[in-house]
C-alpha cells in the first residue's frame, strides 16, 4: 500500500472541519436544513473534492470532469460548502443558503455551479450516475462518477433497480458511497427497515464492496484507490459514520436530521466543539 502524505491527511481533515463549520453556520442562519447528514458526510466530501476528483472550478461543465451526484440531497449544506471552498462560487454566498433570492436551493439544483445533478427526492441519484457512467463509456472518456447515498435512502426501491443495472452493465467507472450513519429522519434505520447485512446485499447485487470508517480520510482515500483499480464491476464503499459527527449533542440522534441548532447557545456550542476538534488536527 502506497503511503499517504501526512500533511495531505491533515489538510483534508481541516477541510472536513471547515465543511462542518460552514454547514452549521449556513443551517443556523437559514433556520432550516439538515445538519445530521451533512456532518456525517463531511469527510467523504472533503476527500472527493480536494483529493480524488478531477474538476475545474473555472469550467464547471468541462466534459472530461469527474461527476458527483449527492443522491442524499438533504446534505446540501455540506455539498455547497465543499463546492464553494473548491472555488466554484464565492464562499460568502454560502450564507444565502435557502433564501428566496439565492441560487443555493434547499436541495441541490442545476442552478448551482458545480452541481452535476439535481437531487432531493431520495433514491434517484444512482440512476443518474449510471447514465453519466454509460455516456462516459460510449464517448470513450475516462472520467469517473461518484454517487453519495444515505443509508436511509437505500430503503427506496429505485436504488436496487440501479444497483442491478450498474452491475449488469459492468460500470467500473461508477462508485457508490453509502453514508452509513444508521439514522434516518424518524428513527434508527434498523428500527425502520433492516438494512444489514448491507455488505452482503451489495455483493449479491454484483458490486465490489469496501467497508471503511467514513471519518478516516486515509481509509476513504485508500477505498477510492481500490475502486479505481477494480475492473468489470462497480464499487460501493460502505462508509460507517456517525450522524451529526463533530457536534456532541447532534451525534447519534435523529433529532437533528432536519433541524438547525435550536438556540444561540446550541449554535455557539457547536462552533466551539468544532473549533476544539480543529485544534487537535
Amino acid at each position, binding site marked *: 500500500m502506497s503511503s499517504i502524505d501526512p500533511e495531505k491527511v491533515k489538510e483534508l481533515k481541516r477541510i472536513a472541519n471547515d465543511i462542518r463549520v460552514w454547514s452549521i453556520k449556513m443551517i443556523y442562519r437559514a433556520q432550516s436544513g439538515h445538519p445530521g447528514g451533512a456532518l456525517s458526510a463531511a469527510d467523504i466530501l472533503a476527500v472527493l473534492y480536494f483529493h480524488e476528483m478531477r474538476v475545474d472550478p473555472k469550467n464547471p461543465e468541462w466534459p472530461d470532469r469527474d461527476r458527483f451526484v449527492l443522491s442524499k440531497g438533504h446534505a446540501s449544506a455540506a455539498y455547497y460548502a465543499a463546492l464553494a471552498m473548491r472555488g466554484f462560487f464565492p464562499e460568502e454566498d454560502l450564507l444565502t443558503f435557502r433564501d428566496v433570492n439565492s441560487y443555493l436551493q434547499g436541495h441541490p439544483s442545476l442552478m448551482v455551479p458545480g452541481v452535476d*445533478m*439535481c437531487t432531493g427526492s431520495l433514491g*434517484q441519484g444512482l440512476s443518474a450516475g449510471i*447514465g*453519466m457512467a*454509460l455516456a462516459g463509456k*460510449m464517448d470513450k472518456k475516462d472520467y469517473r462518477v461518484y454517487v453519495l447515498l444515505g443509508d436511509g435512502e437505500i430503503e427506496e426501491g*429505485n436504488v436496487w*433497480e*440501479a444497483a442491478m443495472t450498474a452491475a449488469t452493465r459492468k460500470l467500473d467507472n461508477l462508485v457508490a458511497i453509502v453514508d452509513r450513519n444508521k439514522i434516518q429522519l424518524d428513527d434508527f434505520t434498523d428500527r425502520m427497515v433492516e438494512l444489514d447485512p448491507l455488505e452482503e446485499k451489495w455483493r449479491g447485487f454484483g458490486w465490489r464492496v469496501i467497508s471503511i470508517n467514513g471519518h478516516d480520510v486515509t481509509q476513504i482515500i485508500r477505498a477510492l484507490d481500490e475502486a479505481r483499480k477494480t475492473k468489470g464491476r462497480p464499487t460501493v464503499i460502505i462508509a460507517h459514520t456517525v450522524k451529526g459527527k463533530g457536534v456532541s449533542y447532534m451525534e447519534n440522534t435523529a433529532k437533528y436530521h432536519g433541524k438547525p441548532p435550536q438556540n444561540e447557545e446550541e449554535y455557539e456550542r457547536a462552533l466551539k466543539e468544532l473549533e476544539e476538534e480543529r485544534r487537535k488536527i
Partner: protein
Amino acid sequence: MNWEYESPRKAYGETLIELGKEREDIVVMDADLSTSTKTAMFGKEFPDRFFNVGLQEQNMMGIAAGLARSGKIVFASSFAVFATGRAYDQVRQSIAYPKLNVKIVATHGGVTVGEDGASHQMIEDLGLMSGLPNMRVIAPLDSNEVRRVIRFVAKEDGPFYVRLTRTALPNLTSGEDEFEFGKGRVMRDGSDATIIALGIEVSYSLLAAEILKKEGYDIRVINMSTIKPIDKDIIVKAAKDTGAIMTVEDHNIYNGLGSRVAEVLVENYPIRMHRHGMKDRFGRSGKWNVLLEHYGMDDKGIAKEMLGFLKEVKK
C-alpha cells in the same frame, strides 16, 4: 372514408432509425417493452446506443436524465401507464425540474389499448405530464404526424412527452405536411359547433361530423396535437365562430384536452362547452373498437353526444 391505416408505433421505430443514422448523440431506452413500443427497431440497428434496462421504469428515467446531462439526446419509451405513472417522480425530479433533454415517447395511451384492460389503459397521462413545469406534451393524430413530431422533439432541446396509441391510425395528414408545434389545425370547417379532438379521436370526430351533417349541423373539427402549450387562438376563434365546443379524447375528461380547452375558454371567451371522453372511470377489457363504441367514443357515439349537447345549447 377511404383512409390509409398505418401503425404509429412502427412510424416511431422507423423515424428513430433515420435519426440514429443522422446523429451520433441520439440514444434510445426501453423497459422490456421494446418489441411493443418498436424501439427494438433502433436497438437492432444501433445496439451500442440502445439501453433496454428491463422492468425498471423508474431507473430508466433516472438513467435517461444522467445520459442527457452528459450531452445525449435521449428517447425513453414504455407504455403510457408505466412511463408516466410508475415513474412519475423520476420524471418530475430528474427530468422536468432540471429541464434535461429527454423525450418520453409512450405508446399504448388510452382505453384503445384494448384487451389488457384498465391496468394498462392510461387515461391520466396527459394530466400528469401537462402539470409538470418545463414539460411539453404532444399527442400526434396519425403516423405521418408521428414522424414529424419525433423529428421535431429530437431537434428541440429539453423534455417532451409524446403520447402514441397502440392501434393503427388513418393517415389524415400527408407526409409532406409540416408540424407546427403549439398549433391546432382545422381538419374540417363548420359553423354550427366545433369538436376539438386529439389522437385517435380526430378521425372518429371527422366521421361523426359526417353523421351530424345529415342531421343538419355543420361541424368544425379541430385537431389539437399539442396539449401543452395549447393553441389559444384557434380555440377562441372556434368559440366566436361556432358558439359551442365539445372536446373528445381517449383520456379522462379531467386534466386532459377537455380541461385545457375549458381553461382557455373560461379565461378568454366563456361559452358553453362539453367534455367527452372517459368520464372519470376506469376502462375494461375488450377489442379497442368495441370499447370505443361501449364508451360512446366512436363516430356514432360522438355524434350522439354532440346532438345531446346541441339540443341543450341551441334551444
